[in-house]
């Protein structure tokens, strides 16, 4: 390990004294196999003179055996750890690498970049101060670049090195570099919350701008990757936040001593400081900061200490000691961002365990508000989260916990989700904010459930959603259907355009936005009906696929039955029961579906009825048939 310092050979004591003052910087490298990520890390180890001769010899041998550089040293082999992965040529897990320079010790989280490894990247990013996002100069900003950036930004990394790699493949072109950087800013400045983006043109393979300035890029005057890492300010933000110490363990060696052991998560503490314990809210004063070396006068975030207090108050593991003048809040219901990490999908309504700081409690995940496509950052409707998917939902805990929002204080706002059956860590969560109870009355756990209500009625609750043009025959069929169901002893309710628009939705008109809101309200109302165990029948034109999809997603599997009353426009217009088509044609009815507003027919409805072929009576029978089978 030939460190480049004369002091080592000449004056080891001074060298050691200087090195004891080194700081720690943790960073993550993001990029896919082809971006040269492993090559970059291997190169940094090599350039920092961190490789032993026997490692180098093994590397040279491995490069010849399985390397991808035609017998030349393949730096990527240095970091692709497990045997299976090395044979496959991919990195599948998080590997940690270490090196140190004159100024700093570095811990590198090396994580794979494919979409299916989003969870590994989030794991690596959760402890990183800085992220290096690799871009292949010959490819430019890709979907995966956006994905990597979004994940590290979500987990709270504020500083990014944009390493535009493989510049040798584009003749070290300044134009290519500038255009990639500008593309990246267009995306990142709007979509991400970053403090700093530092773009550096590099070639990991050739060693350009890794340690020093490269002769191949005379037009680039900024820092090399290592120069940046050496000089970037190591985050002191955790100590400038309000004091928080989660209690890990109560230290009671004898009757005289009672101390509270923990790692200070945020802020600074000194003897004499007023503290408040959460969730109980009890207050006291710090008496001593006890350590093996002796009592401390001051201790900040990152230090493991044992506090004693002036008063005898009841504190146990899971309590949080906070500054009395700026305590955190406590709550049992939150909105959170969730990244799912398990092969078994996240199930809303299921109970899991939550661990946040030293607090563990049982938790129910609510229905998803939406899921975020990590590639496009679009918000999409979703019922479940599969592995590596990110979504937003409400969570409800069996006990109150002390917390801050993740953006305010990551140590108090991050949590893991543990499956009660498999005991695996199945997800990570970031608390956005607490919910007021009033907003979540439905979260109260109830012994009377949808299932019990439905069982009482001996039926399966359903939402039968009729869609089709005005005059297509929706209401007629719905009427007959409901009569038949009631005759069969079923419990039903009908919602249609006419009865809803006179009451619940009388404030809505017929613009696109109003139509969307109309369907949303009907969807939510229908959901309540289904919760009540009823078979709910709705007849609305509901012209847009996305809104019908939204309602479908409100329901559980098999509950939503979409019935497409497929009557051609000419036929509807011919029938014109209410004289609406005539008015619309005359221009007296704006935004009339089929005439001046589009109708998007369902692609895969559960049932399609062609009213030019079957009667309303027959159509109702077809639906009953379907219900009895499905």
């Amino acid at each position, binding site marked *: 390990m030939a460190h480049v310092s004369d002091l080592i050979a000449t004056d080891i004591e001074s060298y050691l004294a200087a090195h004891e003052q080194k700081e*720690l910087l943790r960073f993550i490298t993001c990029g896919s196999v082809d971006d040269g990520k492993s090559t970059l890390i291997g190169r940094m180890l090599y350039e920092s003179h961190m490789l032993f001769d026997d490692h180098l010899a093994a590397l040279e041998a491995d490069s010849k055996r399985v390397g991808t550089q035609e017998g030349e040293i393949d730096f990527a082999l240095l970091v692709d750890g497990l045997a299976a992965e090395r044979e496959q040529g991919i990195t599948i897990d998080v590997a940690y690498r270490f090196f140190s320079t004159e100024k700093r010790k570095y811990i590198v989280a090396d994580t794979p970049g494919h979409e299916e490894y989003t969870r590994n990247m989030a794991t690596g990013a959760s402890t990183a101060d800085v992220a290096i996002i690799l871009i292949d100069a010959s490819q430019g900003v890709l979907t995966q670049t956006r994905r990597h950036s979004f994940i590290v930004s979500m987990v709270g990394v504020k500083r990014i090195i944009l390493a535009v790699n493989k510049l040798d493949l584009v003749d070290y072109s300044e134009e290519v570099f500038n255009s990639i950087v500008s593309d990246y800013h267009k995306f990142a400045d709007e979509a991400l919350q970053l403090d700093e983006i530092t773009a550096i043109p590099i070639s990991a393979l050739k060693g350009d701008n890794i340690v020093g300035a490269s002769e191949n890029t005379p037009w680039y005057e900024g820092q090399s990757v290592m120069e940046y890492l050496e000089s970037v300010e190591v985050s002191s933000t955790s100590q400038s936040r309000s004091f928080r110490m989660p209690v890990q363990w109560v230290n009671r060696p004898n009757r005289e001593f009672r101390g509270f052991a923990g790692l200070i998560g945020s802020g600074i503490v000194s003897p004499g400081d007023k503290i408040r314990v959460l969730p109980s809210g009890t207050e006291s004063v710090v008496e001593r900061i006890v*350590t093996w070396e002796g009592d401390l006068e001051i201790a900040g975030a990152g230090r493991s200490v044992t506090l004693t207090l002036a008063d005898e108050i009841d504190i146990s593991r899971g309590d949080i000691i906070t500054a009395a003048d700026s305590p955190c809040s406590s709550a049992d219901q939150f909105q959170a961002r969730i990244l799912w990490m398990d092969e078994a999908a996240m199930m809303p309504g299921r109970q899991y365990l939550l661990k946040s700081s030293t607090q563990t409690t049982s938790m129910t995940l609510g229905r998803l508000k939406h899921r975020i496509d990590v590639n496009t950052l679009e918000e999409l409707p979703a019922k479940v989260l599969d592995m590596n998917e990110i979504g937003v939902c409400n969570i409800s805990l069996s006990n109150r916990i002390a917390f801050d929002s993740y953006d305010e204080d990551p140590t108090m706002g991050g949590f893991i989700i543990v499956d009660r059956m498999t005991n695996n860590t199945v997800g990570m969560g970031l608390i956005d904010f607490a919910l007021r109870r009033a907003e979540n009355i439905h979260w109260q756990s109830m012994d009377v459930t949808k299932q019990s209500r439905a069982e009482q009625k001996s039926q399966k609750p359903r939402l039968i959603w009729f869609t089709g043009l005005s005059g297509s025959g929706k209401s007629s069929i719905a009427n007959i259907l409901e009569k038949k169901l009631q005759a069969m002893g079923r419990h039903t309710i009908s919602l249609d355009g006419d009865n809803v628009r006179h009451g619940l939705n009388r404030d809505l008109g017929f613009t696109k936005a109003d139509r969307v809101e109309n369907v949303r309200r009907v969807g939510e109302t229908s959901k309540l009906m289904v919760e009540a165990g009823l078979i709910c029948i709705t007849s609305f034109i509901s012209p847009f696929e996305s809104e019908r999809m939204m309602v479908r997603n409100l329901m559980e599997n098999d509950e939503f039955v979409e019935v497409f009353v497929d009557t051609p426009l000419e036929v509807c217009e011919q029938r014109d029961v209410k004289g609406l088509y005539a008015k619309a044609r005359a221009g007296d009815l704006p935004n009339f579906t089929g005439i001046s507003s589009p109708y998007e027919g369902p692609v895969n409805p559960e049932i399609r009825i062609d009213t030019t072929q079957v009667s309303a009576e027959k159509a109702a029978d077809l639906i009953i048939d379907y219900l009895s089978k499905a």
Partner: protein
Amino acid sequence: MQDRMTHLQRLEAEAIHIMREVVAEAENPVMLYSIGKDSSVMLHIAMKAFYPAKPPFPIMHIDTMWKFSEMIEFREKMAEDLGLDLIVHINPEGQEMGMNPFIHGSSVHTDTMKTQGLKQALDAHGFDVAFGGARRDEEKSRAKERIFSFRNESHHWDPKRQRPELWNLYNSRKNNGESIRVFPLSNWTELDIWQYIHLENIPIVPLYLAKPRSVVERDGVLILVDDDRLPLKEGEEPMMKTVRFRTLGCYPLTGAVESEADTLPDIIQEMLLTTTSERQGRVIDFDSSASMEKKKQEGYF
């Protein structure tokens, strides 16, 4: 106002945090003590983590009957000085058959005395969590191992089924039959260990320091004549050389290096200027570069 911390202070705080999490959540934890430098650092940090209480768990040494005699003396002294509960386990089957690496070979010896011995001891005492002093920088498969590393009923490690470790939140919930190895020094490097020993004046086995010792050279490796069980081959003549050890294990399987480094700063200086890694002195790692991963999957610590 700021409380500036050096990298060693951060690493120490992290290790303390990990140990306390285990004590708070485990039913019956134990600290494995190999008597080497990493174990010495781990034990020292355990003394700090629970101060003024003593570490609320025993320490356990898996003895192979072939450790350097100076290691055993050191072990007894440390346990007494620190007032700790020390458990020593020797695989009785190995003891009965007179396990001898010179006769049975190094891999049978290591598997029987170390790997099987460890499993026996953990099962016999019902320990559910065992601290170990392994570091991620030692070897490639270690680089991916979690701080809380799960073992199934047969103590096997499955690198493909590791739980994600986010922030500093550790999930210590076990399934039936599972146990956990916890590595508080995961993020330390060899240099960090030595620097910390130096800074904190942590006692270490004197074998780490150079002095004239009686050795024989065998297959390019210097083996210490630690006791009269070392069979001399033809033409082998014990000779006095000034040597020290970069790593400690069973004396027949651990090579010495010629060195004049007889103080800690000298050791660190030598390490920084040297060009081979510490594991090179370990005979068991010579076979193939994936051998550690295989051993670990079979239950080697």
